[in-house]
């Protein structure tokens, strides 16, 4: 899957590229407006990460020309200007999602996966991980075709893990994903522990392998071996 990262901040772009490449994406980088514009015109991408403040022009203009040319690339706006207007405007112009900086890389990966899934699926909204299948449309999880009842948070957590297979996800990233940045500061990590513990228990009871590993002091890792 091809990703175009449009981001002028080199070190951040580098982190994103490393993380996404590990994920198995093919990534290209455009660090200014012109270069991004060229690449967008010539190639097709599964997803474009779009920074709004670019040297040479606004990312929103790239978005406009993308939509004018009826390109089907998924677009995820990553912006330092965490403003409602930007968000609303971006989404109105046809962006698929909006992620304000600073974000956690697993969050970014999850959002990209979600966008690509929506774009390419064509009805294919099942994630199959060994004996587990996640229906992203119906928000249902089955192990060996047996439905497992999960709470909303547990489902979100599992999907997050599924989108970040084999990665260590910090507790901070999980907290932010599950509770959003407004609540994050109120949440103690005990909640995460409880949710992970319950999820794990339910999955194992349903006959699933124990794929959720706790990484000491750091967070968790979903490793379906």
């Amino acid at each position, binding site marked *: 899957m091809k990703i175009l990262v449009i981001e002028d901040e080199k070190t951040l772009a580098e982190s994103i590229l490393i993380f996404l490449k590990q994920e198995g994406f093919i990534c290209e980088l455009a660090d200014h407006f012109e270069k991004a514009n060229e690449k967008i015109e010539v190639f097709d991408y599964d997803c474009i990460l779009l920074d709004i403040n670019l040297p040479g022009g606004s990312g929103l203009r790239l978005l406009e020309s993308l939509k004018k040319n009826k390109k089907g690339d998924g677009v995820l706006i990553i912006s*330092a200007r*965490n403003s409602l207007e930007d968000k609303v405007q971006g989404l109105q112009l046809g962006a698929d999602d909006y992620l304000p900086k*600073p974000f*956690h890389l697993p969050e970014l990966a999850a959002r990209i996966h979600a966008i690509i899934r929506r774009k390419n699926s064509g009805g294919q909204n099942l994630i199959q991980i060994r004996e587990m299948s996640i229906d992203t449309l119906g928000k249902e999880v089955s192990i060996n075709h047996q439905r497992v009842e999960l709470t909303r948070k547990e489902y979100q957590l599992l999907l997050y893990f599924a989108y970040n297979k084999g*990665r*260590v996800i*910090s507790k901070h990233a999980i907290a932010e994903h599950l509770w959003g940045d407004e*609540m994050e500061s109120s949440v103690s990590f005990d909640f995460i522990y409880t949710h992970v513990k319950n999820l794990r228990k339910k999955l194992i009871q349903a006959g699933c392998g124990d794929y959720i590993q706790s990484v000491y002091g*750091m967070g968790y890792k979903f490793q379906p071996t």
Partner: protein
Amino acid sequence: MKLLTRYSRINSIAAIIVLVMASILYYFILRYVLIHQLENTLNVEEAEIISFVKDHGKLPEATNYRDQHTAFEEVAEPVPREYRDFRSRDREHGETKVFRELSFPISTGSKFFRASVTKSEDEMRELVFLIVLITVIVIILLLLFLYLSNRLLLRRLWEPFYRTLENIKAFNLSNKENIQDHKTGTDEFDELNLVTGSMQKRILRDYENLKQFADNASHEMQTPLAILRSKLDLMIQEPGLNESQTRQVQAMYQALARMTKLNQSLLLLTKIENNQFSKTEIFPLDQLVREKLLQFEELAAAQGVEFETELEEIPIRMNHYLADTLLNNLIGNAVRHNKKDGRIIISLREGQFRIANTGVPEALPGEYLYQRFHKGERSEGVGLGLAIVKQICDHHALTIQYSFRSPFHEFRISIP
């Protein structure tokens, strides 16, 4: 004391002093002139008597009119010529009158006489008295007139000044229309207005710059924060991190999260001040409260904190995002600063939103409550939560009040 009063007072005192002194001077000058005139009459009489003696060689007969007498008195040797005043009883009316007398030497042949011409000063005195009386009346009238006209005139003259003063009092950083610029037609006031106006503009500009700076600084901070966070996310993917490294990474995550929160809060405050949330809509507040309660349910349950609610259907006009933030902060605080198995009472009725929670057993210091970066000793937040709450309330012209009635800390927001 008002300038007007002070001015009137000085003015009146000066006027009285000057006028009194002028009256006294006037009195003496008038008197001097009139006496001089009287003496002239006496001199004329003297000349007539002298010329009569020269022509006839004898004294004329003494006369005695109502207010003018001539008299002769034989003396041993010539007397000096002199004027004098004396009092004498009037024979007809029995009043004491003041007379002026000119006595001069005259001789017929070998005899020396002291001739005296006397004229009553009454008329003159009456005249002086009358004139002084009229003058005093005029002075009093003048003073009265001066006082009244000053009051009226000054009030009108100073009116632009009071207008300027009102304007300065009403000056407000968020209201840019209130710049001083009205023309008065008086140079001093025009200059005053010009100076205050440009000062107001300068203040607004400085404030604008400061806001811009805070805005830019917060935005610029996002990128390095994003870099740090991404690097940490990458770092923990590396295999073989030992326990101490793990702990340090955790601490960095923690600090970063705090910094991010801080930055977002500052940005939010700046945005509210910059009126970037001016779009308001009417929506049922009770519904939003219910949504928030669902959101916080889990957090509260973990501490054994129970919600007790009494929600009436109340529509409110607010910016939706800010209303969301307001409730987040208030309910979040109520949960976070609660005690184990505590209570939270939320009521929305009779135009009031009230949220009360158990917690520390003493009242919070009211004066610092909404101050930025002021936080309780036990608080782990960044100290901007209530500042944001206050700012949101101010922005929507809602009043918020805090009270402590053991064991409840209560925030009350009145909804118009």
